[in-house]
């Protein structure tokens, strides 16, 4: 008898649980709808959601070095001079115009009228002066862009609209580009700018400002209404984290995100022709190459590393180039999604890129390769591999075991080399070992590549003798391929101070041609950047370069500045409602199941007793 009230309690509990479970599923859809309707201006359809897996170190523009936050910072802080969408050349930023005097040693910038920070404060020359001087005087604030101000002697701000940069030596690359300018009135009040995370209530000057950041979950940017080019046409950009790139593709298909970048050709093909999705293959700003150990040495000409003696001979290196069919590599390994390379400046910067038409460019020509090797004194041995003074022409090629492309290239490269009499031994290892070996010069050949900026100065600079390492362990300098040619260095100095853009362009082409002939590397391709977006929801992305370029990862803020919602597009993520409903059902089933279980259990125990 004592049992009765207890089981009544259980039964009423069960009834309540079932009732609430049923109730839960009903309001879910209603509630999901309110999310889209109730929030005032930022309806979800004006939020561009971008899938990302990028690391975020910090949104502090002085110290952030990873790609994802650096891209965000491009959208948040305008610089003095912006990289044009057309071809990356310098164009209006905070500065309306600039004058170069003293043969390139003094740059005077005039700011635009009526510029405002996103909090309404005026943008003045004091902000620019403050930003640059922080980088010049506080070493810790030079982590991100310190190399851009290393030639700065002093900064003057004679009036609110004028900034004068006095340089140590004349320079042609515009010193006002690529440096995000921060608001002095905010940063001055920060206790320690070197550790300031800068991820809440950010005040900026670009098309968007950072609204919120949840590590590994999302980054939200909102439109800056006071941006000088006019407010963007969407309200928000939201970066959503997906660790796995296949998951990103699924998220795009499901409509959970609107833009996915960095696709593999397979993923790209799978998305082609999918309803509501447009795929886009854009010319990237990265080159890929086979780097050749030309004989590593320090700045004081002390040789180091284990590079093959044979590769010190330019004719052998040229033979490697003649024997490599980059057209086939592009077509077979990269499924044609790219551009055949000439030098280390990609074709997406047509002004600086070494044209295919240039006199020095050679095609795939195994016979000419053999002739070069003959000239160099390497004669075929019994098994076809060439020999000289009792030494076999054997070279080591480092490949990253996890990089499918590198493995495939090797599959083509090895027989091609065998064909001209060079034996290649492939050493497959991990990327960290490769970078360690590359630094210490412990290789003959390895796959390399860099992302290049619109101004070629930096990339050219790391090919000069003055940037060779200082120590025999390969540290103390940054060198692209260990290349060193005094003639190249002379031209480098010349182009750096050549203010006339056309003359400078000519010198740069000559430098690339010289480097090409010296063959410190065989540039293979400029891979396209494979992107896909929900064209049923968004349209009007601006590419950089304008005709053939990319949407994400630009050297500028054009991509999302002009994007706009497609008229009449429905809010995405309807499936999230389905998810919620099913979530409700799951909770309901668990509750009901639990209650039923306990009811049965009670009855059974009652039976025993």
């Amino acid at each position, binding site marked *: 008898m004592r049992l009765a009230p207890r089981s009544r309690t259980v039964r009423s509990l069960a009834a309540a649980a079932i009732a609430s479970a049923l109730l839960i599923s009903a*309001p879910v859809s209603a*509630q*999901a709808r309110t*999310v889209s309707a109730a929030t005032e201006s930022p309806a979800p359809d004006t*939020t561009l959601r971008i899938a990302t897996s990028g*690391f975020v*170190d910090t949104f502090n523009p002085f*110290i952030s*070095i990873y790609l994802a936050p650096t891209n965000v910072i491009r959208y948040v802080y305008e610089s003095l001079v912006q990289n044009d969408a057309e071809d990356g050349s310098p164009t209006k930023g905070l500065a309306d115009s600039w004058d170069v005097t003293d043969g390139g040693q003094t740059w005077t910038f005039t700011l635009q009228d009526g510029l405002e920070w996103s909090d309404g404060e005026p943008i003045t020359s004091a902000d620019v002066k403050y930003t640059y001087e922080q980088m010049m005087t506080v*070493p*810790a604030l*030079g*982590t991100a862009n*310190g*190399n851009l101000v*290393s030639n700065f002697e002093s900064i003057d701000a004679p009036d609110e609209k004028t900034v004068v940069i006095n340089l140590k030596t004349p320079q042609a690359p515009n010193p006002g580009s690529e440096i995000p300018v921060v608001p002095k009135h905010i940063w001055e009040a920060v206790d320690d700018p070197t550790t300031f995370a800068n991820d809440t209530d950010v005040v900026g000057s670009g098309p968007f400002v950072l609204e919120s950041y949840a*590590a*590994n*979950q999302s980054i939200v940017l909102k439109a800056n209404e006071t941006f000088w080019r006019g407010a963007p046409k969407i309200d928000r950009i*939201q970066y*959503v*984290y*997906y*660790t*796995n790139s*296949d*998951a990103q*593709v*699924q*998220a795009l*298909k*499901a*409509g*959970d*995100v609107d833009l996915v970048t960095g696709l593999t050709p397979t993923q790209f093909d799978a998305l082609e022709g999918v309803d509501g999705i447009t795929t886009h293959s854009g010319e990237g700003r990265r080159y890929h190459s086979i780097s050749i150990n030309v004989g590593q040495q320090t700045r004081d000409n002390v040789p180091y590393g284990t590079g093959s003696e044979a590769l010190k001979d330019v004719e052998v290196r040229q033979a490697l180039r003649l024997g490599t069919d980059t057209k086939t590599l592009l077509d077979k390994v990269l499924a044609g999604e790219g551009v055949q390379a000439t030098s280390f400046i990609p074709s997406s910067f047509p002004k600086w890129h070494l044209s295919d038409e240039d006199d020095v460019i050679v095609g795939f020509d195994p016979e000419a390769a053999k002739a070069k090797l003959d000239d160099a004194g390497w004669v075929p041995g019994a098994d076809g591999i060439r020999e000289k003074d009792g030494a076999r022409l054997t070279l080591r090629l480092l490949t990253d075991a996890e990089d499918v492309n590198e493995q495939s290239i090797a599959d083509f490269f090895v027989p091609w080399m065998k064909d001209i009499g060079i034996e290649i031994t492939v050493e497959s290892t991990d990327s*960290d*070992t490769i*970078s*360690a070996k590359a*630094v210490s010069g412990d290789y003959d050949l390895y796959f390399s590549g*860099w*992302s290049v900026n619109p101004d070629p100065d*930096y*990339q050219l600079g790391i090919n000069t003798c003055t940037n060779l390492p200082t120590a025999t362990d390969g*540290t*103390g300098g940054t060198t692209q391929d260990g290349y060193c040619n005094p003639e190249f260095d002379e031209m480098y100095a010349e182009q750096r101070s050549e203010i006339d853009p056309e003359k400078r362009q000519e010198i740069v082409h000559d430098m690339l041609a010289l480097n090409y002939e010296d063959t410190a590397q065989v540039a293979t391709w400029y891979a396209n950047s494979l992107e896909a977006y929900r064209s049923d929801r968004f349209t009007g992305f601006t590419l950089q370069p304008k005709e053939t370029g990319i949407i994400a990862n630009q050297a500028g803020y054009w991509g999302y500045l002009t994007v706009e919602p497609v008229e009449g597009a429905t809010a995405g*993520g309807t*499936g*999230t409602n*389905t*998810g*919620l409903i*099913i*979530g409700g059902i*799951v*909770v309901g089933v668990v509750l009901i199941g639990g209650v039923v279980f306990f009811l049965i259990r009670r009855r*059974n125990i009652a*039976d*025993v*007793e």
Partner: protein
Amino acid sequence: MSNAVPPSTSVIATSAAADEQPTGVGALRYLLVKLGGAAISMAMVILLGFFAFKILPGDPVASVARERGMSAEQAEQLREQLGLNKPLWQQFFDYLGNVFTGNFGTSYVYRTSVAELIGDYFWNTILLTGTAAIIAIALGLWLGQKAAWKHGSTFDKIASGTSLVFWSVPTFWLALLLLMVFGGTLHWFPTGGMVSPNPPTDPIGVVLDVVSHMVLPVVTMVAVVYAQYLMVMRSSLLEEMGADYLTTARAKGLREDLVRRRHAVPNALLPTVTLVFMHIGGLIAGAVTVETVFSWPGLGKLTFEAISGPDLPLLQGTFVVFSAIIIVMNLIADLIYRQLDPRVRRA
């Protein structure tokens, strides 16, 4: 009623009570031995946590600055910020000091305290793997005892067979398959993360949102691990099934399913307990794959990203935490097992 307690237990309990004296000393020694073992393992883990990651090839600064085009001065600056300019022994003592204060230094990538990062992600992993563990254990044990009771039947064959199939399926593959079918194509469930990009604001909505994000990863984890609980429960119950006390229980006229539930199963649970605790540690460590596929912001995903960094302090941190969980779980398994099974106590 007295027969609610299985007779076997009471019999053994009485005999154990008979040698009370040696048991007390034995218990203390047992505890000390197990604790000592755990402490030594932990010390090894901490040592290994430092040196294993120090002998890895590659320069952390070079990796962090990869393709960034840093000047030598900038790299030096970064080296100093990351504490890499100090001699190795000093780095080691810094690390030791850090570990004992529950700190693992500063992450190279996130530039925040590793302890804080792990703290943030820890509960997400516990939520996901905890749910999966409870469901997998309940499902495995329940199916296991049913299968054993009707061993040789069609039910037994189907239950054991399917569980083994799921067990041998690669986790990564199953997770991706579920993601593609139920996430990308049908879009019944979100494709990743723990909350929606624009999460609901009301409490019920928030709970449901998280639950809907949990469904696919939990299903994956359960599918892959429940077989081991099923198999152990099954074989352990099979061993009990010929025992005399079951005949006694039946002779008392008890219904068959009561004999099973109240007499056979409790005894067969003993070996399962150890297994469960040992596997909870493994399950948490195994979260790496599932969390990576479903972008679940937990320790597994954190570890995966620390590896791709590579972010050495963070890797050290997750390594030590994962190892500690496994060591503690094994210790608990040992202690509980002794508590539950008097035969261990007497030994």
